[in-house]
């Protein structure tokens, strides 16, 4: 199979390539959702797949998220590996009952007899000027549901590798695609041999000594930018990209915080009841004696996602991250 892709490729192109490769490798893989066929998805992630694999494997479904995921459950029961697309984060909510009451617990309920190898692709997060219901960060809901894996790529290479790993997983994976990174490019070469490692491993994106920024998905590039800007303040910040929220890579995170002694968790979703609270608690439990300051959180405000003209005030930006890093220094200064 030949792949014609721009070099460097975008994250959206890497996702398309991952779907195409997975479908080629395994005839059980089916792609389904609203607009995924002829249109190729509103973000063009499924572009060309219907043409290549036919409507039976790349299916434009009726517009009904519970129905999309509910029928995927039945298809998985019969041995298929559905990859469903929820067009936007907030559009996935009608499917929550299927996700939580069935997808997440079917393996458990049947003592392993009925695994649910379903990948649920959810474009999520803000920063693209979307109108209401098009910018939510719903990862905390998914994280709170046992039985689901929750992953989110921040790089083009990870978009490919994590999606392949998700589709290959015998368990359901909520695959959160940061919308504002769809068009980001990096040096990923689609013609190179691709590596697919098991999900559940965080990675140090930028080594540093002053403090650890723990982040994922759309906030990873922001944290990297903050780390560069922090150099002017004399701070050498380490950036850990979680990549997988469930399972959580305690080892990589704790090892980093033990090295730096300070940590800030950064994410777009609200702070109260958000992923940052869980992460801060885990870090504190493991690194208490290494910590020079409390683990801080830089999160979105605890508000419904704001209208696009105000979203820049809501989203964690470089200044807010560096301000938090500054507050981490209190003990050293006092």
């Amino acid at each position, binding site marked *: 199979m030949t792949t014609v892709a721009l070099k460097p490729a975008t994250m959206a192109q890497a996702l398309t390539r991952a779907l195409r490769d997975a479908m080629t490798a395994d005839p059980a893989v089916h792609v389904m959702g609203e607009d995924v066929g002829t249109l190729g998805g509103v973000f063009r992630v499924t572009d060309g797949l219907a043409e290549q694999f036919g409507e039976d494997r790349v299916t434009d479904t009726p517009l009904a998220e519970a*129905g999309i995921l*509910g029928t995927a*459950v039945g298809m998985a029961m019969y041995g298929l590996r559905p990859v469903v697309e929820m067009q936007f984060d907030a559009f996935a909510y*009608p499917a929550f009952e299927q996700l939580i009451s069935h997808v997440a617990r*079917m393996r458990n309920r049947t003592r*392993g007899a009925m695994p649910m190898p379903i990948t649920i692709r959810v474009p999520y997060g803000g920063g693209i000027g979307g109108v209401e219901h098009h910018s939510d960060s719903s990862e905390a809901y998914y994280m709170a549901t046992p039985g689901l894996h929750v992953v989110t790529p921040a790089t083009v290479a990870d978009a490919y590798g994590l999606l392949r790993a998700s589709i290959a*997983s015998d368990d359901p994976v909520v695959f959160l695609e940061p919308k504002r990174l769809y068009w980001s490019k990096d040096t990923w070469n689609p013609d190179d041999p691709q590596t697919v490692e098991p999900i559940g491993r965080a990675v140090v994106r930028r080594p540093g000594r002053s403090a650890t920024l723990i982040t994922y998905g759309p906030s990873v590039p922001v944290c990297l930018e903050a780390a560069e800007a922090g150099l002017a303040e004399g701070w050498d910040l380490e950036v850990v990209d979680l990549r997988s929220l469930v399972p*959580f890579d305690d080892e990589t995170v704790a090892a980093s915080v033990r090295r730096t002694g300070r940590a800030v968790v950064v994410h777009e979703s609200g702070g109260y009841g958000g992923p940052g609270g869980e992460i801060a608690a885990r870090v504190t439990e493991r690194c208490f004696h290494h910590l020079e300051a409390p683990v801080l959180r830089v999160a979105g405000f605890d508000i419904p996602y704001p209208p696009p003209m105000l979203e820049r005030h809501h989203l964690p930006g470089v200044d807010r991250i560096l301000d938090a890093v500054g507050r981490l220094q209190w003990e050293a200064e006092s």
Partner: protein
Amino acid sequence: MTVMEQRGAYHPTPPPAWQPRTDPAPLLPDALPYRVLGTDAAAGADPALLRRLYAELVRGRRYNAQATALTKQGRLAVYPSSTGQEACEVAAALVLEERDWLFPSYRDTLAAVARGLDPVQALTLLRGDWHTGYDPHEHRIAPLCTPLATQLPHAVGLAHAARLKGDDVVALAMVGDGGTSEGDFHEALNFAAVWQAPVVFLVQNNGFAISVPLAKQTAAPSLAHKAVGYGMPGRLVDGNDAAAVHQVLSEAVAHARAGGGPTLIEAVTYRIDAHTNADDATRYRGDSEVETWRAHDPIALLEHELTERGLIDEDGIQAARDAAEVMAAELREHMNQDPVLDPMDLFAHVYAEPTPQLREQEALLRAELAAEQEGAH
């Protein structure tokens, strides 16, 4: 330019006259529920089938009574009885071929048992030792589903997948009258019709969703009428007439298997017992209504037909009752044994590979169990 002028420019020629896509008449259900027993249609019914249905009805009624008794002894956490609805349960199980799939709701234990599931395994969920006490693939019975109507899209997906693989498998999905108000009911029927999936939807309209009567559940002329809006046939059948339910289901299954797509069947029946043993049905319905339905009992109807036509005698009736007693005695005996559970099962089936976090929790429980064991000695 006015809006109307813009529209004129957008449609330079008048749109073609709108044509109805389907004549709804063939999809509409009959005004009255279809019946076989006590009618001329009964003459065409297969005697062996009628006798089999009868034996299963008697066994099912006994199963309901035994399970209800077990709740009083504290052996079952709860039991939603299907007494009065046995004809639907049994027919649903008997119309399916071995390769077909049954998608039961929480009240449809009898359908699963009639399909061959071990009576004890069928009660695991309600006893509380595990959520599903059987391997769904063994008899092709999906887990008894507690959330309402959410198993219906599963049936559609499975039937669709089977057809994509070239297997002539049919899925039969069961739901109650209350479940037809749920969004998943709508989405499942719509997907099934659009995909022409080989699915049969059986609504057991037993009059009440816990306490809410049908009149407060829907304004539709019948639940079977809902089918026409999806573009599938709707059938209305007397749910206490085992021969009629079997016939209507058989036709729908054959239609689906032949590629004709889904059917929605409403079986009109009545829940003689309360919603579960925990419910007080006297708060929402009168005795006279229940007595009217008792007079239309599915077992009595079939027994009468069989006796009238000389297809069964007193010995035959007694044989069916004896077989049911044997089943009940075995069920009692097994359910009165304390199940031996392995607490480590808690972690065994959350993921294919436990997460590191679950491994830590597993270790904690193992240590607690070891300490308990030590304390016991």
